[in-house]
């Protein structure tokens, strides 16, 4: 698993934790605002990660232990 997609799952988990904490824990205003800001920041990061990726459809071509990657468009 590459790093960034693990990050995304971790971020989503963190978002869930923070949201539940803000909803259920007895916190003072400062703590609440801090959690809120953290949560909003993470949700922003998640959205950015989703937009960040670039569409790529490729085909690997292997010749003599060398590997080439070409764009692939399916027939039909």
């Amino acid at each position: 698993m590459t790093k960034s997609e693990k990050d995304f799952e971790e971020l989503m988990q963190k978002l869930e934790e923070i949201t539940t904490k803000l909803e259920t824990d007895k916190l003072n205003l400062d703590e609440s605002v801090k959690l809120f800001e953290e949560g909003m920041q993470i949700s922003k990061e998640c959205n950015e990660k989703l937009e960040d990726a670039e569409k790529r459809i490729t085909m690997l071509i292997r010749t003599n232990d060398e590997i080439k990657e070409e764009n692939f468009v399916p027939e039909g």
Partner: protein
Amino acid sequence: MCQKIGTKVIAYGSIQVYEKDGVYQLYCKSMKEDGIGDLYTAYEELKRKLSLEGLFDEKHKKKIPFMPKVIGVLTSNTGAVIRDIINISTRRNPNVYIRLFPVPVQGEGAGVKIAEAIEFMNEQKLADVLIIGRGGGSLEDLWPFNEEIVARAIYDSEIPIISAVGHETDFTIADFVADLRAPTPSAAAELAVTNIEDLKYTINLYKNRLKMALHKKTEVMRLRFEKCMNAGCYKDPYKMINDYYILIDRRLKSLENSVVQKLKDSKIRGAKAITKLDTLSPLKTLTRGYSIVQSEGRVISRVKDLKKGDIVDLHFSDGSAKAEIK
């Protein structure tokens, strides 16, 4: 229905006994050629063997990553399978990254090629999840996915593998070993690719929940604050000062009143004293013809206090004069 003698067939029907002759008769309702009889036996044997070895055990199944960055697909580069996978994947995530490694999916040697491809993808770490599959077909067509070499390659793969072989009803050995079995290649794409819209919706839900939670907290605090602010001291902060002003005014007034009263009292007392003084005053007596004799500032009230030659002051009502005692 005409079958050549020696053809293996699968017949479906009922058996009845003709008791008189002890003859069994098969009333065949349908019949199909069973060219795959041997393959089927091989399939069952391999399945049993690998199952006993534990290759199908749940504990070996790897989790399919939540957001795979690269989706590796091992299938033919022609035909509907790769097209379906690309269509479904891009529909769910327009920014998906699919890496197709073309492999033959039927015929002699296909199994070896598939196994090699799995190993290669692993060695080079070319994907975060692998979909291996092909479209529907006969048991012979699907055979590479029933080969031991493929089963072992799937088992040894570090990259989680989704198998998508044939139709929903086709079960291959690959399906049993794979970390996840998809009923069709399209379904495999759905399992591998997270729907971005769903994710965005989920993220949005979290955002709304965060907003609601904070709003609820601040609302409670706002109510508490308002309750405090409704207290008189905050609502009309000048009231207290004004109250003091009124008090000061009142005190001042009463002070003034008492001073005036005291003044009045004093005047009355003074007038009384004056009247009293007036009645006691020697001046009145003086006007009646008496006079006061003083010598060296002292009032002389007896004659024995005087001697000859003393100069005395005589005080009358309208003035004084000096006299010598003889």
